[in-house]
Protein backbone atom coordinates (compact mmCIF):
# COMPACT_ATOMS: atom_id res chain seq x y z
CA UNK A 1 0.00 0.00 0.00
CA UNK A 2 1.26 3.49 -0.88
CA UNK A 3 1.95 6.01 1.84
CA UNK A 4 -0.88 8.51 1.88
CA UNK A 5 0.02 12.14 2.34
CA UNK A 6 -2.25 13.79 4.84
CA UNK A 7 -1.07 17.34 4.39
CA UNK A 8 0.91 18.79 1.53
CA UNK A 9 4.53 17.89 2.16
CA UNK A 10 5.99 21.27 2.94
CA UNK A 11 8.22 19.90 5.62
CA UNK A 12 10.32 17.36 3.75
CA UNK A 13 13.51 17.12 5.74
CA UNK A 14 16.68 17.21 3.67
CA UNK A 15 19.13 17.20 6.55
CA UNK A 16 18.55 16.12 10.13
CA UNK A 17 20.75 16.78 13.16
CA UNK A 18 21.17 14.15 15.89
CA UNK A 19 21.47 15.52 19.41
CA UNK A 20 22.72 12.28 20.88
CA UNK A 21 25.50 9.70 20.80
CA UNK A 22 26.22 5.98 20.88
CA UNK A 23 23.91 3.27 19.64
CA UNK A 24 20.82 5.47 19.39
CA UNK A 25 22.68 7.93 17.15
CA UNK A 26 23.55 5.01 14.88
CA UNK A 27 19.91 3.87 14.94
CA UNK A 28 18.72 7.32 13.83
CA UNK A 29 21.41 7.64 11.14
CA UNK A 30 20.38 4.32 9.61
CA UNK A 31 16.70 5.34 9.54
CA UNK A 32 17.67 8.62 7.85
CA UNK A 33 19.87 6.84 5.31
CA UNK A 34 16.93 4.67 4.32
CA UNK A 35 14.65 7.70 4.01
CA UNK A 36 17.22 9.60 1.93
CA UNK A 37 17.87 12.21 4.62
CA UNK A 38 21.36 13.57 5.27
CA UNK A 39 22.55 13.47 8.87
CA UNK A 40 24.54 15.84 11.07
CA UNK A 41 26.00 14.41 14.25
CA UNK A 42 26.18 16.91 17.13
CA UNK A 43 28.99 15.34 19.14
CA UNK A 44 31.32 15.96 22.05
CA UNK A 45 35.11 16.13 21.68
CA UNK A 46 35.94 12.47 22.51
CA UNK A 47 33.06 11.07 20.46
CA UNK A 48 34.92 11.39 17.17
CA UNK A 49 36.02 7.81 17.84
CA UNK A 50 32.55 6.26 17.54
CA UNK A 51 30.55 4.49 14.85
CA UNK A 52 27.97 7.30 14.69
CA UNK A 53 30.74 9.76 13.79
CA UNK A 54 31.89 7.50 10.97
CA UNK A 55 28.39 6.96 9.60
CA UNK A 56 27.03 10.52 9.75
CA UNK A 57 27.26 12.63 6.59
CA UNK A 58 28.34 15.68 8.57
CA UNK A 59 29.42 16.39 12.10
CA UNK A 60 30.01 19.32 14.33
CA UNK A 61 31.64 19.36 17.75
CA UNK A 62 29.34 20.99 20.30
CA UNK A 63 31.59 20.88 23.35
CA UNK A 64 33.95 18.95 25.59
CA UNK A 65 33.29 15.52 27.12
CA UNK A 66 31.24 16.48 30.21
CA UNK A 67 27.57 16.25 29.26
CA UNK A 68 26.64 19.58 30.84
CA UNK A 69 28.92 21.30 28.33
CA UNK A 70 27.94 19.26 25.28
CA UNK A 71 24.98 16.88 25.10
CA UNK A 72 22.97 18.82 27.68
CA UNK A 73 23.86 22.26 26.34
CA UNK A 74 20.73 23.52 24.57
CA UNK A 75 22.23 26.48 22.74
CA UNK A 76 25.30 24.51 21.59
CA UNK A 77 23.03 21.86 20.07
CA UNK A 78 20.75 24.40 18.38
CA UNK A 79 23.70 26.43 17.07
CA UNK A 80 25.44 23.31 15.80
CA UNK A 81 22.34 22.14 13.95
CA UNK A 82 21.87 25.57 12.36
CA UNK A 83 25.54 25.91 11.43
CA UNK A 84 25.35 22.64 9.52
CA UNK A 85 22.16 23.59 7.72
CA UNK A 86 19.90 21.01 9.37
CA UNK A 87 16.13 21.50 9.20
CA UNK A 88 15.25 19.07 11.98
CA UNK A 89 16.66 17.68 15.23
CA UNK A 90 16.20 14.18 16.59
CA UNK A 91 16.98 14.08 20.33
CA UNK A 92 17.13 10.26 20.70
CA UNK A 93 16.59 9.25 24.33
CA UNK A 94 18.18 10.56 27.52
CA UNK A 95 20.04 13.89 27.37
CA UNK A 96 17.68 16.60 26.02
CA UNK A 97 15.01 14.27 24.66
CA UNK A 98 12.43 15.15 27.33
CA UNK A 99 13.46 18.75 27.77
CA UNK A 100 10.60 21.06 26.78
CA UNK A 101 12.96 24.05 26.73
CA UNK A 102 15.07 22.31 24.11
CA UNK A 103 12.01 21.48 21.99
CA UNK A 104 11.00 25.13 22.27
CA UNK A 105 14.50 26.43 21.45
CA UNK A 106 14.51 24.24 18.33
CA UNK A 107 11.13 25.60 17.24
CA UNK A 108 12.25 29.19 17.82
CA UNK A 109 15.34 28.59 15.70
CA UNK A 110 13.17 27.20 12.92
CA UNK A 111 14.25 23.61 13.51
CA UNK A 112 11.71 20.80 13.44
CA UNK A 113 11.94 18.91 16.73
CA UNK A 114 11.30 15.18 16.20
CA UNK A 115 8.93 14.58 19.09
CA UNK A 116 5.82 15.93 20.75
CA UNK A 117 5.16 19.65 21.21
CA UNK A 118 6.93 21.50 24.05
CA UNK A 119 3.54 21.83 25.72
CA UNK A 120 2.87 18.09 25.56
CA UNK A 121 6.35 17.40 26.97
CA UNK A 122 5.68 19.84 29.83
CA UNK A 123 2.26 18.48 30.68
CA UNK A 124 3.10 14.79 30.56
CA UNK A 125 6.78 14.94 31.50
CA UNK A 126 6.15 16.63 34.83
CA UNK A 127 5.30 13.88 37.32
CA UNK A 128 2.82 15.84 39.39
CA UNK A 129 1.06 17.37 36.36
CA UNK A 130 0.88 14.01 34.58
CA UNK A 131 -0.70 12.50 37.69
CA UNK A 132 -3.26 15.29 37.78
CA UNK A 133 -4.18 14.61 34.14
CA UNK A 134 -4.34 10.88 34.78
CA UNK A 135 -6.60 11.44 37.77
CA UNK A 136 -8.89 13.67 35.74
CA UNK A 137 -9.16 10.93 33.11
CA UNK A 138 -9.99 8.37 35.79
CA UNK A 139 -6.81 6.34 35.44
CA UNK A 140 -5.89 4.23 38.46
CA UNK A 141 -3.10 5.86 40.46
CA UNK A 142 -1.03 4.42 43.26
CA UNK A 143 -3.00 5.53 46.36
CA UNK A 144 -1.24 8.43 47.96
CA UNK A 145 -1.33 11.83 49.60
CA UNK A 146 -0.11 14.99 47.89
CA UNK A 147 -1.85 17.54 50.08
CA UNK A 148 -0.57 20.93 51.17
CA UNK A 149 -1.10 20.16 54.84
CA UNK A 150 2.41 19.05 55.71
CA UNK A 151 1.93 18.75 59.46
CA UNK A 152 3.36 15.53 60.81
CA UNK A 153 -0.02 14.61 62.28
CA UNK A 154 -1.77 14.90 58.93
CA UNK A 155 0.98 12.96 57.15
CA UNK A 156 0.98 10.09 59.66
CA UNK A 157 -2.82 9.98 59.44
CA UNK A 158 -2.59 9.88 55.64
CA UNK A 159 -0.07 7.05 55.82
CA UNK A 160 -2.43 5.06 58.04
CA UNK A 161 -5.28 5.62 55.58
CA UNK A 162 -3.16 4.49 52.63
CA UNK A 163 -2.01 1.42 54.54
CA UNK A 164 1.59 0.29 55.09
CA UNK A 165 4.04 -0.09 53.47
CA UNK A 166 4.05 3.54 52.37
CA UNK A 167 6.83 5.41 50.64
CA UNK A 168 7.49 9.04 51.46
CA UNK A 169 9.11 11.08 48.67
CA UNK A 170 10.40 14.63 48.34
CA UNK A 171 8.03 16.63 46.13
CA UNK A 172 10.87 18.63 44.61
CA UNK A 173 13.27 15.75 44.40
CA UNK A 174 14.32 12.58 42.77
CA UNK A 175 17.18 10.14 42.72
CA UNK A 176 16.29 8.48 46.00
CA UNK A 177 17.06 11.48 48.21
CA UNK A 178 14.36 12.30 50.74
CA UNK A 179 12.83 8.90 50.08
CA UNK A 180 11.89 6.50 52.92
CA UNK A 181 9.77 3.40 53.18
CA UNK A 182 7.38 3.36 56.15
CA UNK A 183 6.50 -0.14 57.31
CA UNK A 184 4.48 0.49 60.46
CA UNK A 185 2.98 3.30 62.55
CA UNK A 186 5.61 3.10 65.30
CA UNK A 187 8.41 4.48 63.11
CA UNK A 188 6.30 6.53 60.68
CA UNK A 189 6.61 9.87 62.48
CA UNK A 190 10.35 9.63 62.84
CA UNK A 191 10.91 8.59 59.19
CA UNK A 192 8.62 11.27 57.76
CA UNK A 193 10.46 13.94 59.76
CA UNK A 194 13.76 12.58 58.57
CA UNK A 195 12.54 12.63 54.95
CA UNK A 196 11.39 16.24 55.40
CA UNK A 197 14.83 17.22 56.74
CA UNK A 198 16.58 15.48 53.85
CA UNK A 199 14.23 17.06 51.34
CA UNK A 200 14.86 20.51 52.80
CA UNK A 201 18.62 20.17 52.73
CA UNK A 202 18.76 18.55 49.29
CA UNK A 203 16.09 20.49 47.39
CA UNK A 204 15.39 23.56 49.51
CA UNK A 205 11.81 22.45 50.15
CA UNK A 206 10.59 20.20 52.94
CA UNK A 207 7.42 19.31 50.99
CA UNK A 208 6.87 15.57 50.78
CA UNK A 209 4.18 13.32 49.39
CA UNK A 210 3.13 9.79 50.23
CA UNK A 211 2.47 6.81 48.03
CA UNK A 212 1.47 3.24 48.67
CA UNK A 213 4.69 1.26 48.36
CA UNK A 214 4.23 -1.53 45.84
CA UNK A 215 6.75 -4.11 46.98
CA UNK A 216 6.12 -6.81 44.38
CA UNK A 217 5.11 -4.83 41.33
CA UNK A 218 5.81 -5.51 37.70
CA UNK A 219 6.88 -2.70 35.40
CA UNK A 220 4.69 -2.69 32.31
CA UNK A 221 4.52 0.06 29.73
CA UNK A 222 2.43 0.89 26.68
CA UNK A 223 3.97 2.21 23.49
CA UNK A 224 1.82 5.01 22.13
CA UNK A 225 2.11 6.82 18.83
CA UNK A 226 0.38 10.01 17.75
CA UNK A 227 0.30 10.39 13.98
CA UNK A 228 0.18 13.55 11.89
CA UNK A 229 -3.62 13.38 11.61
CA UNK A 230 -3.91 13.70 15.40
CA UNK A 231 -4.87 10.10 16.04
CA UNK A 232 -3.17 8.47 19.03
CA UNK A 233 -2.89 4.70 18.88
CA UNK A 234 -0.99 2.20 20.94
CA UNK A 235 1.35 -0.55 19.77
CA UNK A 236 0.79 -2.79 22.76
CA UNK A 237 2.99 -3.35 25.75
CA UNK A 238 6.45 -4.19 27.00
CA UNK A 239 7.50 -5.60 30.34
CA UNK A 240 10.67 -4.24 31.96
CA UNK A 241 10.54 -5.71 35.46
CA UNK A 242 14.17 -6.83 35.42
CA UNK A 243 15.81 -3.67 36.69
CA UNK A 244 18.43 -2.77 39.19
CA UNK A 245 18.58 0.57 40.97
CA UNK A 246 15.80 1.75 38.62
CA UNK A 247 17.96 0.85 35.63
CA UNK A 248 16.32 -1.58 33.23
CA UNK A 249 18.29 -4.65 32.15
CA UNK A 250 15.95 -6.99 30.27
CA UNK A 251 12.80 -5.96 28.41
CA UNK A 252 10.32 -7.95 26.40
CA UNK A 253 7.24 -7.60 24.23
CA UNK A 254 4.58 -8.47 24.88
CA UNK A 255 4.47 -8.77 28.65
CA UNK A 256 3.96 -12.37 29.77
CA UNK A 257 1.93 -11.07 32.73
CA UNK A 258 -1.16 -9.45 31.24
CA UNK A 259 -4.60 -10.87 30.64
CA UNK A 260 -6.16 -9.65 27.40
CA UNK A 261 -8.63 -7.68 29.46
CA UNK A 262 -5.92 -5.81 31.39
CA UNK A 263 -3.99 -5.27 28.19
CA UNK A 264 -6.98 -3.62 26.52
CA UNK A 265 -7.65 -1.43 29.56
CA UNK A 266 -4.04 -0.26 29.80
CA UNK A 267 -3.86 0.42 26.08
CA UNK A 268 -7.02 2.48 26.23
CA UNK A 269 -5.78 4.43 29.28
CA UNK A 270 -2.47 5.18 27.55
CA UNK A 271 -4.25 6.50 24.45
CA UNK A 272 -6.51 8.73 26.54
CA UNK A 273 -3.45 10.36 28.10
CA UNK A 274 -1.90 10.96 24.69
CA UNK A 275 -5.13 12.33 23.19
CA UNK A 276 -5.58 14.67 26.14
CA UNK A 277 -2.40 16.59 25.24
CA UNK A 278 -2.51 16.15 21.45
CA UNK A 279 0.47 13.84 21.57
CA UNK A 280 2.52 13.51 18.40
CA UNK A 281 5.19 10.91 17.73
CA UNK A 282 6.41 8.04 19.91
CA UNK A 283 5.80 7.96 23.65
CA UNK A 284 5.56 5.50 26.48
CA UNK A 285 3.08 5.31 29.31
CA UNK A 286 4.52 3.42 32.26
CA UNK A 287 2.43 1.43 34.72
CA UNK A 288 3.01 -0.73 37.74
CA UNK A 289 1.08 -3.98 38.00
CA UNK A 290 0.53 -5.71 41.32
CA UNK A 291 -2.03 -8.32 42.37
CA UNK A 292 -3.86 -8.03 39.08
CA UNK A 293 -4.31 -4.25 39.34
CA UNK A 294 -2.47 -1.63 37.32
CA UNK A 295 -1.46 1.86 38.37
CA UNK A 296 -0.32 4.80 36.26
CA UNK A 297 3.33 5.62 36.95
CA UNK A 298 4.65 8.19 34.47
CA UNK A 299 4.99 9.12 30.81
CA UNK A 300 8.23 9.18 28.80
CA UNK A 301 7.69 11.70 26.02
CA UNK A 302 10.28 10.24 23.66
CA UNK A 303 11.58 7.14 21.96
CA UNK A 304 12.42 4.48 24.54
CA UNK A 305 15.69 2.52 24.82
CA UNK A 306 13.69 -0.70 24.53
CA UNK A 307 11.71 0.36 21.43
CA UNK A 308 13.20 -2.49 19.33
CA UNK A 309 11.17 -5.21 21.09
CA UNK A 310 7.97 -3.45 20.02
CA UNK A 311 9.36 -2.99 16.51
CA UNK A 312 10.08 -6.71 16.22
CA UNK A 313 6.72 -8.04 17.42
CA UNK A 314 4.71 -5.38 15.59
CA UNK A 315 6.76 -5.19 12.39
CA UNK A 316 7.11 -1.40 12.49
CA UNK A 317 9.95 1.13 12.41
CA UNK A 318 9.33 3.65 15.17
CA UNK A 319 12.21 5.96 14.31
CA UNK A 320 11.13 6.29 10.69
CA UNK A 321 7.55 6.74 11.90
CA UNK A 322 8.72 9.61 14.12
CA UNK A 323 10.44 11.34 11.21
CA UNK A 324 7.55 10.79 8.77
CA UNK A 325 5.12 12.16 11.33
CA UNK A 326 7.22 15.28 11.77
CA UNK A 327 7.09 15.69 7.99
CA UNK A 328 3.31 15.50 8.12
CA UNK A 329 3.16 12.12 6.44
CA UNK A 330 1.09 9.05 7.24
CA UNK A 331 2.66 6.14 9.11
CA UNK A 332 2.06 2.40 9.47
CA UNK A 333 0.72 1.92 5.93
CA UNK A 334 -0.27 -1.64 6.74
CA UNK A 335 -2.13 -0.55 9.85
CA UNK A 336 -5.21 -2.77 9.44
CA UNK A 337 -2.90 -5.76 9.80
CA UNK A 338 -0.93 -4.31 12.70
CA UNK A 339 -0.95 -7.01 15.37
CA UNK A 340 1.70 -8.50 17.64
CA UNK A 341 3.30 -11.73 16.52
CA UNK A 342 5.79 -13.95 18.35
CA UNK A 343 7.93 -12.68 21.18
CA UNK A 344 10.90 -10.31 21.45
CA UNK A 345 13.46 -9.89 24.24
CA UNK A 346 16.10 -7.20 24.64
CA UNK A 347 19.18 -7.39 26.86
CA UNK A 348 21.10 -4.24 27.62
CA UNK A 349 24.84 -4.77 27.56
CA UNK A 350 26.56 -2.66 30.20
CA UNK A 351 30.33 -2.20 30.45
CA UNK A 352 30.72 -3.34 34.03
CA UNK A 353 32.22 -6.16 36.04
CA UNK A 354 29.55 -8.55 37.38
CA UNK A 355 32.21 -10.34 39.42
CA UNK A 356 33.01 -7.11 41.29
CA UNK A 357 29.63 -5.72 42.26
CA UNK A 358 28.98 -4.27 38.81
CA UNK A 359 31.62 -1.54 38.93
CA UNK A 360 32.02 0.23 35.58
CA UNK A 361 34.61 -1.13 33.22
CA UNK A 362 36.30 1.25 30.84
CA UNK A 363 38.91 0.78 28.17
CA UNK A 364 39.59 0.31 24.51
CA UNK A 365 37.44 -2.20 22.64
CA UNK A 366 39.86 -4.79 21.28
CA UNK A 367 37.31 -6.93 19.51
CA UNK A 368 33.55 -6.87 19.14
CA UNK A 369 31.70 -9.57 17.19
CA UNK A 370 28.00 -10.35 17.13
CA UNK A 371 26.56 -13.72 16.08
CA UNK A 372 24.25 -12.54 13.29
CA UNK A 373 21.30 -14.70 12.32
CA UNK A 374 17.56 -14.67 11.69
CA UNK A 375 15.63 -12.80 14.36
CA UNK A 376 18.79 -11.37 15.93
CA UNK A 377 19.37 -7.64 16.10
CA UNK A 378 22.37 -5.80 17.53
CA UNK A 379 22.40 -2.10 18.33
CA UNK A 380 25.87 -0.85 19.11
CA UNK A 381 27.73 2.40 18.62
CA UNK A 382 31.26 1.11 19.06
CA UNK A 383 33.75 -0.70 16.87
CA UNK A 384 37.08 -2.31 17.70
CA UNK A 385 39.57 0.42 18.59
CA UNK A 386 36.93 2.73 20.12
CA UNK A 387 37.08 3.67 23.79
CA UNK A 388 34.49 3.18 26.51
CA UNK A 389 35.02 6.22 28.75
CA UNK A 390 33.65 7.14 32.16
CA UNK A 391 31.92 10.25 30.83
CA UNK A 392 28.77 8.56 29.57
CA UNK A 393 26.28 5.87 30.39
CA UNK A 394 27.80 2.40 30.62
CA UNK A 395 25.27 0.86 28.21
CA UNK A 396 27.40 -0.01 25.19
CA UNK A 397 24.99 -2.16 23.21
CA UNK A 398 21.60 -3.83 23.06
CA UNK A 399 20.97 -7.37 21.92
CA UNK A 400 17.43 -8.02 20.71
CA UNK A 401 15.97 -11.31 19.55
CA UNK A 402 12.64 -12.30 18.08
CA UNK A 403 11.20 -15.78 17.87
CA UNK A 404 7.83 -17.46 17.56
CA UNK A 405 7.26 -17.88 21.29
CA UNK A 406 8.69 -16.62 24.58
CA UNK A 407 10.40 -19.96 25.24
CA UNK A 408 12.13 -19.89 21.87
CA UNK A 409 13.09 -16.25 22.28
CA UNK A 410 14.71 -17.08 25.64
CA UNK A 411 16.60 -19.99 24.09
CA UNK A 412 17.76 -17.79 21.24
CA UNK A 413 18.87 -15.02 23.60
CA UNK A 414 20.92 -17.46 25.68
CA UNK A 415 22.70 -18.74 22.59
CA UNK A 416 23.25 -15.25 21.19
CA UNK A 417 24.71 -13.96 24.47
CA UNK A 418 26.98 -17.02 24.71
CA UNK A 419 28.30 -16.34 21.20
CA UNK A 420 28.71 -12.56 21.54
CA UNK A 421 32.34 -11.54 21.79
CA UNK A 422 33.43 -8.31 23.46
CA UNK A 423 37.10 -7.95 24.35
CA UNK A 424 38.55 -4.86 26.02
CA UNK A 425 35.92 -4.14 28.66
CA UNK A 426 34.08 -6.46 31.00
CA UNK A 427 30.34 -6.74 30.48
CA UNK A 428 27.21 -7.83 32.33
CA UNK A 429 26.68 -10.73 29.88
CA UNK A 430 27.40 -13.39 32.57
CA UNK A 431 24.79 -11.73 34.80
CA UNK A 432 22.23 -11.57 31.98
CA UNK A 433 22.76 -15.28 31.31
CA UNK A 434 22.02 -16.10 34.95
CA UNK A 435 18.95 -13.85 35.11
CA UNK A 436 17.54 -15.35 31.91
CA UNK A 437 17.92 -18.83 33.42
CA UNK A 438 16.37 -17.90 36.78
CA UNK A 439 13.05 -19.69 37.42
CA UNK A 440 11.33 -16.41 38.20
CA UNK A 441 12.22 -15.02 34.78
CA UNK A 442 11.63 -18.28 32.94
CA UNK A 443 8.10 -18.52 34.33
CA UNK A 444 7.44 -14.81 33.79
CA UNK A 445 6.83 -14.11 37.49
CA UNK A 446 9.64 -11.54 37.89
CA UNK A 447 8.96 -8.26 39.69
CA UNK A 448 11.01 -5.08 40.04
CA UNK A 449 12.46 -6.61 43.20
CA UNK A 450 13.97 -9.60 41.40
CA UNK A 451 17.46 -8.18 40.96
CA UNK A 452 17.70 -6.96 44.54
CA UNK A 453 16.37 -10.26 45.84
CA UNK A 454 18.48 -12.73 43.90
CA UNK A 455 21.33 -10.82 42.30
CA UNK A 456 22.39 -8.23 44.86
CA UNK A 457 25.82 -9.83 45.26
CA UNK A 458 28.68 -10.17 42.83
CA UNK A 459 28.63 -13.34 40.78
CA UNK A 460 31.01 -16.04 41.99
CA UNK A 461 34.04 -16.31 39.73
CA UNK A 462 33.76 -19.26 37.34
CA UNK A 463 36.08 -22.21 37.83
CA UNK A 464 39.26 -22.44 35.80
CA UNK A 465 39.83 -26.09 34.91
CA UNK A 466 43.05 -27.66 33.58
CA UNK A 467 41.62 -27.78 30.07
CA UNK A 468 41.06 -24.04 30.14
CA UNK A 469 44.63 -23.48 31.35
CA UNK A 470 45.88 -25.53 28.41
CA UNK A 471 43.73 -23.42 26.08
CA UNK A 472 45.17 -20.22 27.58
CA UNK A 473 48.72 -21.46 27.08
CA UNK A 474 48.19 -22.54 23.49
CA UNK A 475 46.24 -19.44 22.51
CA UNK A 476 48.88 -17.23 24.09
CA UNK A 477 51.70 -19.07 22.33
CA UNK A 478 49.93 -18.81 18.97
CA UNK A 479 49.16 -15.12 19.33
CA UNK A 480 52.68 -14.33 20.60
CA UNK A 481 54.18 -16.05 17.58
CA UNK A 482 51.93 -14.03 15.26
CA UNK A 483 52.94 -10.79 16.96
CA UNK A 484 56.64 -11.58 16.73
CA UNK A 485 56.34 -12.24 13.02
CA UNK A 486 56.76 -16.00 12.94
CA UNK A 487 53.17 -16.66 12.02
CA UNK A 488 51.59 -16.75 8.59
CA UNK A 489 50.49 -13.10 8.53
CA UNK A 490 52.70 -11.74 11.26
CA UNK A 491 54.26 -8.34 11.47
CA UNK A 492 57.01 -7.57 8.99
CA UNK A 493 55.57 -9.82 6.31
CA UNK A 494 53.56 -8.83 3.31
CA UNK A 495 49.86 -9.27 3.76
CA UNK A 496 48.99 -12.20 1.49
CA UNK A 497 45.84 -10.41 0.41
CA UNK A 498 47.72 -7.33 -0.69
CA UNK A 499 48.92 -8.89 -3.94
CA UNK A 500 45.37 -9.83 -4.80
CA UNK A 501 44.07 -6.27 -5.12
CA UNK A 502 42.65 -5.81 -8.54
CA UNK A 503 40.60 -3.02 -9.98
CA UNK A 504 37.20 -4.42 -10.86
Amino acid sequence: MEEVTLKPINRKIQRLAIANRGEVAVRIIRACQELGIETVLLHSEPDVATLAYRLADRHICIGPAPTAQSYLNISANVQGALAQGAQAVHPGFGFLSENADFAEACAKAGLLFIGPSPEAIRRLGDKVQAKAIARKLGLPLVPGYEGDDQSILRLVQAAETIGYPVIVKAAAGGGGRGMKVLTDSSSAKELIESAQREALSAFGSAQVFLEKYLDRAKHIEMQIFGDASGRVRHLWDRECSVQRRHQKMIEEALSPSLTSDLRLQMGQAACWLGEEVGYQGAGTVEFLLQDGKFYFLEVNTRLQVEHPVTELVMGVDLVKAQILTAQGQAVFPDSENLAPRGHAIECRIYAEDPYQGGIPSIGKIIEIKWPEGPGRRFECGLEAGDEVTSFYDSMIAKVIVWDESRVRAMQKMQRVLADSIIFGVRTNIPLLQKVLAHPEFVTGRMTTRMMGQYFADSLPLPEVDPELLAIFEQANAKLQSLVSGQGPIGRGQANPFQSQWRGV
Partner: protein
Amino acid sequence: MRLELEINGQKVIVESELAGTDLWLHHKGQTWLRSFAPVATRRAGGRKTDAGELLAPMPGKVTKVLTQVDAIVKAGEVLIVMEAMKMEYILKSPQAGRITSLSCELGQQVNLGQKLLQIDPVAVKS
Protein backbone atom coordinates in the same frame (compact mmCIF):
# COMPACT_ATOMS: atom_id res chain seq x y z
CA MET B 1 40.76 -13.73 16.03
CA ARG B 2 39.50 -17.25 15.62
CA LEU B 3 42.12 -19.79 16.66
CA GLU B 4 42.10 -23.50 16.07
CA LEU B 5 43.80 -25.31 18.95
CA GLU B 6 44.38 -28.92 19.77
CA ILE B 7 43.72 -29.88 23.38
CA ASN B 8 44.18 -33.53 24.41
CA GLY B 9 43.92 -34.58 20.81
CA GLN B 10 40.63 -32.69 20.34
CA LYS B 11 40.12 -29.75 18.02
CA VAL B 12 39.03 -26.66 20.01
CA ILE B 13 38.06 -23.40 18.34
CA VAL B 14 38.31 -20.25 20.43
CA GLU B 15 38.24 -16.54 19.84
CA SER B 16 41.24 -14.77 21.32
CA GLU B 17 43.15 -11.49 21.16
CA LEU B 18 46.31 -10.27 22.76
CA ALA B 19 46.36 -6.64 23.90
CA GLY B 20 49.66 -5.70 25.47
CA THR B 21 50.00 -8.04 28.41
CA ASP B 22 46.31 -9.01 28.45
CA LEU B 23 45.05 -12.16 26.83
CA TRP B 24 41.31 -12.05 26.06
CA LEU B 25 39.73 -15.38 25.30
CA HIS B 26 36.18 -16.53 24.55
CA HIS B 27 35.38 -20.20 24.96
CA LYS B 28 32.06 -22.01 25.47
CA GLY B 29 30.03 -18.85 26.08
CA GLN B 30 32.40 -17.39 28.65
CA THR B 31 34.89 -14.56 28.18
CA TRP B 32 38.14 -14.74 30.08
CA LEU B 33 40.84 -12.19 30.67
CA ARG B 34 44.26 -13.31 31.70
CA SER B 35 46.76 -10.66 32.51
CA PHE B 36 50.42 -11.47 32.24
CA ALA B 37 51.36 -8.13 33.76
CA PRO B 38 53.68 -8.22 36.77
CA VAL B 39 51.65 -8.27 39.99
CA ALA B 40 53.10 -4.96 41.18
CA THR B 41 51.47 -3.06 38.33
CA ARG B 42 48.07 -4.58 38.96
CA ARG B 43 46.87 -2.49 41.85
CA ALA B 44 43.64 -3.75 43.31
CA GLY B 45 40.98 -1.08 43.40
CA GLY B 46 38.43 -0.26 46.07
CA ARG B 47 40.03 -2.46 48.63
CA LYS B 48 43.04 -2.17 50.79
CA THR B 49 46.45 -3.12 49.66
CA ASP B 50 48.89 -4.58 52.15
CA ALA B 51 49.95 -1.04 52.85
CA GLY B 52 46.44 -0.14 54.13
CA GLU B 53 45.58 2.13 51.23
CA LEU B 54 42.09 2.55 49.81
CA LEU B 55 42.30 2.79 46.03
CA ALA B 56 39.77 4.01 43.47
CA PRO B 57 38.09 0.96 41.90
CA MET B 58 37.45 2.89 38.70
CA PRO B 59 38.04 6.29 37.23
CA GLY B 60 35.39 8.75 38.32
CA LYS B 61 34.47 11.67 40.49
CA VAL B 62 34.61 11.78 44.28
CA THR B 63 31.12 12.95 45.29
CA LYS B 64 31.28 12.44 49.04
CA VAL B 65 34.07 12.21 51.58
CA LEU B 66 32.54 10.88 54.77
CA THR B 67 35.64 10.68 56.88
CA GLN B 68 38.58 12.79 57.90
CA VAL B 69 42.15 12.44 59.02
CA ASP B 70 42.45 10.88 62.49
CA ALA B 71 38.92 9.43 62.33
CA ILE B 72 38.61 5.97 63.84
CA VAL B 73 36.64 3.77 61.46
CA LYS B 74 35.09 0.33 61.62
CA ALA B 75 35.43 -2.28 58.90
CA GLY B 76 32.57 -1.78 56.43
CA GLU B 77 32.04 1.87 57.33
CA VAL B 78 31.25 4.05 54.31
CA LEU B 79 34.25 6.31 53.69
CA ILE B 80 33.94 7.66 50.17
CA VAL B 81 31.24 7.87 47.54
CA MET B 82 32.29 8.00 43.90
CA GLU B 83 30.32 8.56 40.74
CA ALA B 84 31.12 7.17 37.32
CA MET B 85 28.90 6.59 34.30
CA LYS B 86 25.93 8.19 36.06
CA MET B 87 26.06 5.59 38.84
CA GLU B 88 27.06 6.00 42.46
CA TYR B 89 29.57 3.68 44.09
CA ILE B 90 30.06 3.40 47.81
CA LEU B 91 33.54 2.64 49.04
CA LYS B 92 33.62 1.05 52.46
CA SER B 93 36.47 0.66 54.83
CA PRO B 94 38.21 -2.67 54.24
CA GLN B 95 39.35 -2.81 57.85
CA ALA B 96 39.05 -1.13 61.22
CA GLY B 97 41.65 1.51 61.91
CA ARG B 98 42.59 5.15 61.98
CA ILE B 99 42.62 7.35 58.88
CA THR B 100 46.16 8.67 58.73
CA SER B 101 45.92 10.57 55.45
CA LEU B 102 43.36 11.64 52.85
CA SER B 103 44.61 11.90 49.28
CA CYS B 104 41.44 13.01 47.55
CA GLU B 105 38.94 15.78 47.91
CA LEU B 106 35.30 16.43 47.13
CA GLY B 107 34.63 16.84 43.43
CA GLN B 108 38.02 15.52 42.39
CA GLN B 109 38.33 13.38 39.25
CA VAL B 110 40.41 10.32 40.13
CA ASN B 111 42.02 7.60 38.05
CA LEU B 112 41.70 3.85 38.34
CA GLY B 113 43.87 2.60 41.22
CA GLN B 114 44.57 6.08 42.52
CA LYS B 115 45.16 6.19 46.28
CA LEU B 116 42.23 7.81 48.08
CA LEU B 117 43.23 7.43 51.70
CA GLN B 118 45.42 5.59 54.14
CA ILE B 119 44.17 3.50 57.06
CA ASP B 120 46.48 2.53 59.89
CA PRO B 121 45.17 -0.61 61.59
CA VAL B 122 47.64 -0.51 64.48
CA ALA B 123 46.22 2.60 66.02
CA VAL B 124 42.96 0.94 67.03
CA LYS B 125 42.10 -0.77 70.25
CA SER B 126 38.66 -2.31 70.23
